[in-house]
Each structure stands twice: as C-alpha cells, then as structure tokens.
C-alpha cells in the first residue's frame, strides 16, 4: 500500500534553506549485470542507465540514479496519481526484466521519502553532518552520491544549482528533518 501521509506536515522554511517532501513519486530499484538487462531497460524506459559512478541520466519523465555498478534507482519526475497503488512503469519493468530473469525490479516508492532541499546554505548544513566532499558534486548538475548525513544513510541527487533531492528511508525521515531544521537555525 502506498503511504500518502506526508512525513513533514508543512514545508520547512528558514532564511537560508527550505525543505519540502515531494510525494507521491514513483521510485523503482533496478539490479542487473547482463548486457541484455541494460538494453532491455534502455528500450523500456527510452533512456540509457548511467554507467559512470556518481552520475544520473534524465529523460522527460524519468531520472535514473547510479547506486552501484549493478544497481540503479529510477524516479519519476512528475507526481504520480494519488488514487491508485499501481504504476504502469513498474508493471512494465517487472514483466520484461524480473519475469525473464534478467535482473531484479523492486518498487521502493514507500521505502524512500523524497525531500527537496533548496537554498544557498544547503552545503553548509551537509558539511555539519556528512564526511562527503561536496566540491565536485556542487559544480556538476546531475551528480549523485550515497553517503551518511548525521549517521543516516541518504541518497543525494543534484537537481539544479542549490536545489537537491534527498532520499532517506521513511523511518529516519522525521528525525533527519528535525536535525536539518535545528542545524539550519544555527547557521
């Protein structure tokens, strides 16, 4: 069941940063190594999966984030319908990849919460809680990183200058938001 309860009730806005949850967004985890897997996904999604580390590719409707040499996360750029739990995208991938044993397709829509972080001081907040070096990440649109933020596993995606998508496991989302809020209030 899709959980449409928002983790943060209102958009968090402070002088230097704003955080809001983007939901519902379809998120799919893809795993596979074979060449047929890559071509099959490419055909189905009409886009190429990124093979270079810490990068992403974007089409009109979808974004593919590199997670590991054989793992990707596909997210929809637009909001999904609130009235149904089914997604055509998942069904299509499941039928063409999971059922033919080319790889694994897992719906992680409910597992991850997508937060949009916006503001000039986003990276200063990160530097307070993450050991990752953001110098290159900051400059390159579309770059991604999996790292820890305040000891919580997060996936980061550089959307635009000073705008990023942060994916965090649902059970940690509220805690992470309070930490960001607290951190932002001290900047």
């Amino acid at each position, binding site marked *: 069941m899709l959980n449409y309860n928002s983790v943060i009730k209102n958009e968090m806005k402070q002088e230097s940063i704003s955080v809001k949850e983007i939901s519902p967004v379809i998120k799919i985890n893809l795993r596979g190594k074979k060449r047929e897997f890559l071509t099959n996904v490419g055909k189905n999604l009409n886009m190429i999966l990124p093979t270079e580390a810490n990068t992403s590719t974007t089409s009109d409707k979808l974004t593919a984030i590199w997670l*590991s040499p054989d793992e990707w996360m596909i997210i929809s750029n637009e909001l999904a319908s609130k009235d149904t739990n089914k997604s055509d995208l998942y069904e299509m991938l499941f039928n063409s990849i999971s059922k033919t044993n080319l790889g694994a397709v897992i719906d992680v829509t409910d597992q991850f919460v997508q937060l949009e972080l916006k503001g000039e001081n986003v990276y200063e907040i990160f530097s307070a809680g993450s050991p990752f*070096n953001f110098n290159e990440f900051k400059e390159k649109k579309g770059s991604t990183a999996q790292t820890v933020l305040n000891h919580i596993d997060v996936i980061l995606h550089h959307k635009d200058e000073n705008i990023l998508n942060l994916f965090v496991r649902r059970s940690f989302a509220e805690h992470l938001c309070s930490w960001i809020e607290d951190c932002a209030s001290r900047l």
Partner: protein
Amino acid sequence: MFLINCPYCGERDQQEFKAGGEAHIERPKQPTELSDDEWAEYLFMRKNIKGVQFERWNHAHGCRKWFNMVRDTSNDEIKAIYKMGEKPPTQ
C-alpha cells in the same frame, strides 16, 4: 579521519566503510573430512599481525560493494586497493 578509495565510487571517508576481516582465506574443498581442530583453524584463526595485512572491506553506506585492501596495521597506511576476484599485488 582517513580516506579510503572505493574502487567503484572514488575517495570516501572511512566512516562509510565496514571492515570485513582477513582476505584470501580459502574454504576447504572437503569440509567433512577435516578434524575439529582443522575446521576451527579455518573458521576462527586469523593472523592479526602488526604490519602489512590483506583485508576485506565493504562500502556499507555507499555502493555496498566488497573489495580488498592491503593495509599496514601499525600506521593505517593503505598500500593497495583491488576488487574482489582480482589477484593480490605482490609487494
């Protein structure tokens, strides 16, 4: 704080990684034919030397891939990093 160069993701902080013990320990081909002592030797006994050691590491908070590392345990100097299945460097 020291940096580890993950063969898949690039340079990351040590806190993203988990150590996985000594590398290149081969599982006995016929476990049923071993004595208890020999089995214990394979299962539990590790070198744990002061000096250059071959280890397995896992990028637990990143790509979640395993890889091998040659590390000097006395000063934490990383001598080499190579992927699983690759031959260990000779010196």
